[in-house]
């Protein structure tokens, strides 16, 4: 493996942002349904 460069750093930020973004948007909408209709 080659070590550290700027492209890797951008790749880390991009992948983590996409994955966490997807997870939190999903959780937001899940909770929204429960907030509106929960018992």
């Amino acid at each position, binding site marked *: *493996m080659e070590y550290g460069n700027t492209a890797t750093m951008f790749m880390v930020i991009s992948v983590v942002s996409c994955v966490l973004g997807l997870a939190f948007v999903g959780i937001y909408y899940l909770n929204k349904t429960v907030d509106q209709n929960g018992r």
Partner: protein
Amino acid sequence: MHLIPQSWSHLHILVSVFPSIGLIFALGFYVTAFATNNAAMKRSCLVLFGILGILAIPTYFSGERSMAVLSQDPKISQDLMNTHFDWGVASLAVLVMTGVAALIELWRSRRAERLSNDALHLVLGLAIVTLALMIVVGELGWEINHHELQLDPATQRTPQAWSHVHIILNHFPTVGFVFALGFYIAALVMNNVVMKRGSLVLFVICAILGVPTYVTGAASMWALTGVPGISKAVINAHRDMALLTLFGLAFTGVAAWIELWRFRHLGRFSNRSLYLVLAFAIITLGVMAETGHRGGQINHPEIRLATDVLPTDPKAGWSPAIESLINHVIWFVPWQTVHFFGFSLIFGTALAVSLRVLGFWKSMPFSAVHRLLPLGVFGVVMNVFSGMLILSADSFRYLNATTFAPKTALIAIGAIAVLYFSLSERLWTVKAGEDAPMSAKWVAAVVLLSWAGVIIGGRLIPYV
């Protein structure tokens, strides 16, 4: 590839897993029906036992005909086959009794308009005896044609125990999935809430079991490398499909879990979500059937046809391509970072929910902390995906590390235990200021210790 069996041996290895491993799932549903006292579920289970009883017929005849064919193979032990046959006849006889008792009770209860507890317990007892016998039969059966299990451990770089575990474990998410789907369709048709929840739980359990199945499969690949008669190209073809199955299981399992979680808060199911789970499940079952068939081709020359064209290039397929790609730092480090975020989410959620159950933050009702669970489930999804990629980078080293097997087992235990938080009626009604039941505290301790063990096991991989 032919999915329809064209030989007795092929039919036998396909059909025999249903009355054996399938019986575990049938018993699971049956015990749930007793626990929830759901008459429709009890009747559905009786139908299931009846079907399994009927399956004893093709299992017996395909087994007997397979013996005649396999007797000509000098590598196969006649004594082992005979012992398998004798135990097999005993277990199938009890299975037929179970099926007949279930069908008689079903017929009788239609006239009497109620189920008899004595008859139901008789079916339960017979099914348990059948299962005990089937465990012996199954173990003897697997050893007939899996000669790699007899190899000297001293000559093996990767223990054959992985292959042994894989040939047993892979039938759980596959056969379990067939039962879950069958029960789910029956639940949708009958509009039975308990059966819907039971099937959704089984979809989630199958998805969770997909993880150790995939991991043990990858380890078996290394254990079988260099064994005469085993082709790496055929293994890779199986691995590619197993990867797709893992994704299918993840989609089905997560969709099913979300519906269980939402049901807890809303008190009803969304039809759209239920049919989404059904669509995922049907697609996954199709992919799984092809995966199983390709897996069978690795070590069962007796099911191959003269017209079958098996892969010959060990570098072809997605799995070797992923292995090559993930070994570049630009791909490895981002997914390793996602893995760290994933276990932060899992452990943070497990800690918060488990501590409330154990007696911390009593001013909050349990339903409030239950809202946090999707965070942890998304963490699990992130880590299954990123973990699979990380494993591909150097699977030989990871799989032969001492702590990898316990880590994988603890993932399954920790994830299955979390299901309790969305299923227990007593826990759900714990209000602010109230203490959780003792059983819930034990489950919380198991969840917390399992996920702590997963993290510790993972971190120790390079050092132990």
